[in-house]
């Protein structure tokens, strides 16, 4: 069992290492840093351009690993970490293959470089992994630094969909042997009302208040059914938009947001719904995306 960090030196790489280390420490398992060398097409070219490309790609991957080694030696010299170069035609496929070989609990990546500091932005690799990974994906916000006291609380964003109960149970299993607490939050929006005649300007308040009551009942039901333990914190967070809804929750440095997935077909894969995508975009803490 390991936490696998997909490492490509550049902006976001340090964040992934920080989050990978924090998760490995929190879960009490090893850390594996993987760098991907791109393989070319199988057909050799006459001018050996493909062989040159492979050589270059391997060299870059090795340099990345050396960089990761140096960074970890500086930040956490005592942690047991394995470093490995893997090869594949695509980075996401190579990472999934490596995760299977390493029996990885989670694949960790950094945010894309075009996000703001503190923001979680899925880059192209993370985006493709989100649609194809059988293992959870963790994405660090830009500029993330591991909290001094480690990861203390995992907040599951529950849409209210019964299909996600399995994900909550898996999350509980994952943290059972750790000190981390599980919190469940249902996010919602206060939609603006339209103005139909003779219905009043507060027509939407009724719907919102009913939704809130239902959401609170569902969250209490999680405790009653033993999906979460009786002491687990549950809450409904709302705002006029998704950013405000996410801000409605108190976040601490040791928090991680966990988002479940919708089952997409017969194969269990990470596949976020549209609301989850928006919640992730505004998360101020690292995000873990669970496959369905």
């Amino acid at each position, binding site marked *: 069992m390991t936490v696998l960090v997909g490492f490509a030196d550049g902006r976001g790489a340090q964040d992934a290492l920080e989050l990978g280390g924090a998760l490995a420490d929190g879960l009490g398992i090893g850390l594996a840093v993987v760098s991907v060398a791109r393989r070319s097409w199988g057909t050799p070219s006459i001018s050996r351009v493909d062989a040159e490309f492979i050589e270059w790609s391997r060299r870059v991957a090795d340099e990345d690993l050396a960089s990761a080694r140096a960074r970890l030696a500086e930040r956490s010299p005592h942690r047991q970490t394995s470093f490995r170069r893997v090869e594949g035609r695509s980075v996401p496929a190579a990472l999934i293959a490596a995760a299977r070989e390493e029996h990885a609990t989670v694949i960790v990546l950094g945010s894309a470089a075009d996000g703001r500091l503190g923001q979680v932005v899925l880059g192209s690799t993370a985006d493709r992994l989100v649609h194809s990974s059988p293992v959870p994906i963790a994405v660090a916000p830009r500029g993330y630094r591991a909290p001094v006291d480690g990861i203390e609380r995992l907040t599951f964003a529950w849409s209210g969909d019964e299909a996600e109960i399995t994900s909550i149970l898996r999350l509980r299993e994952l943290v059972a042997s750790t000190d981390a607490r599980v919190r469940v939050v249902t996010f919602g929006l206060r939609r*603006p009302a339209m103005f139909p005649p003779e219905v009043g300007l507060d027509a939407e308040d009724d719907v919102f208040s009913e939704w809130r009551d239902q959401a609170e009942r569902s969250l209490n039901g999680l405790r009653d059914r033993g999906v979460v333990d009786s002491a687990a914190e549950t809450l409904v967070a709302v705002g006029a938009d998704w950013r405000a809804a996410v801000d409605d929750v108190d976040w601490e440095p040791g928090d991680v947001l966990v988002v479940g997935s919708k089952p997409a077909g017969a194969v269990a894969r990470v596949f976020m719904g549209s609301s989850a995508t928006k919640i992730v975009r505004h998360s101020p803490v690292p995000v873990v995306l669970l496959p369905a």
Partner: protein
Amino acid sequence: MSVTQQLFRRKPITAPSESPDGLSRKISAFQLTMFGVGATVGTGVFFVMHEAVPDAGPAVIIAFLLAGLAAGLSALCYAEMASAVPVSGSTYSYAYATLGEVVAMGVAACLLLEYGVSTAAVAVGWSDYVDLLLSNLLGFGIPDALEGGPFEGGIINLPAVVLVAMCAVLLIRGTSESAAANAVMVIIKLAVLLGFSAIAFTAFNADNFADFAPNGVTGITAAAGTIFFTFIGLDAVSTAGDEVKDPQKTLPRALIAALITVIVIYLLVAVSALGTQPWQDFSSEDQAEAGLAKILENVVGAAWPGTILAIGAVISIFSVTLVTMYGQTRILFAIGRDGLLPSMFARVHPTLRTPVNTTVVVAIAVGLLAGFVPLDSLWDLVSIGTLVAFIVVSLGVIVLRRTRPDLPRGFKVPGYPVVPILSIIACVYILSGLHWTTYAWFLGWLSVVLAFYFLWGRRHSKLNGTGGTGAGGSAGRDAAVPGDGVAP
């Protein structure tokens, strides 16, 4: 609790929650006026001429004034009710808080009827404009079998059904027309109507007004009844009146300004349209569909003005359908939450966060109406529902003044009790012009709703557990509607 007490128990008042997207309390009289104009100038005027002119002839102008006057008086009563009773601002809620449960159910029946029918009728009108647009742009329209229900020699009005389905999908997804989109729609509607008038006035012929009131007062009253629904929406000014400074002065000014603006727009359309052709032509078969566009085509002798008008109509009618369907789902939802309808109506989908069940029920009912019932038998039903609801509100003002004179009122009807009584008289007068078949349909529907209430709703009302005497307070406003006894 006796049956009488049960029937007239009132809902306790709770203050509406502060909504972050609500109107700001700094709204000016001008903004309020524009808000009222935007909410009132719907799309009825796009179709109503074909229905009303054959009744009144050129005197349809008087009918517009009459309907506007009744709507304005009712809106003043609405404003006092809104300022005295701190509930959500729906006619149903006012009735429930002041006159009792059975009256609220009656008002609910009126609202459901007017909303259901107007959505269906508007969808049918939309279908006509879509057909005209396709004909003008592509050279072929929608086949007759798919452009009218069985009563009109077709099978189904498919575009109308498609429009209702599209709006239902949007509402289920939680789409909401933003303030900006609403403003754009208002501008499109006004531009189209003013553009129509400008072009129609180029062919103005005063001789068309010679036979001014061919059917006398009876015809004018009947036309006023048909036209009345085009003034629905003025109550938006009343319910938003809470957000203005000094409502006692600002609100009636905004209301009157909005009403005059709306009447001027409607009269421009009516006078310019009447100037283009003899009043008898309005009932001709070719103007039964997309009438205003047809008039423009006749005036100019080319298709382009009609096409532009049809584009505006197709866009703005779509938005009106969305808003009216939304309104109906929210009324049903409120009734469901009060326990007067099965709880499925008050359920919100956990992930979509919209009342999906209610939206589906509304879409099916409206879709069936739009697909199979001819348009011209519908408009008067919209008016009758609104008129009865307005009478209840005006009556509510009088009842509340007698039972709770101590209630703080941000706005008081000027010239009490004359204005509420005039409002009732005006509405009753317009009601008197409606056809007996409209009454039959209305009373039939009312009987169904009230029978359901007596057999089911009465026993399941949320007030059963509370005694339902209507005691309640309100944060922010020191207003509680009586906690003792029964409305007289």
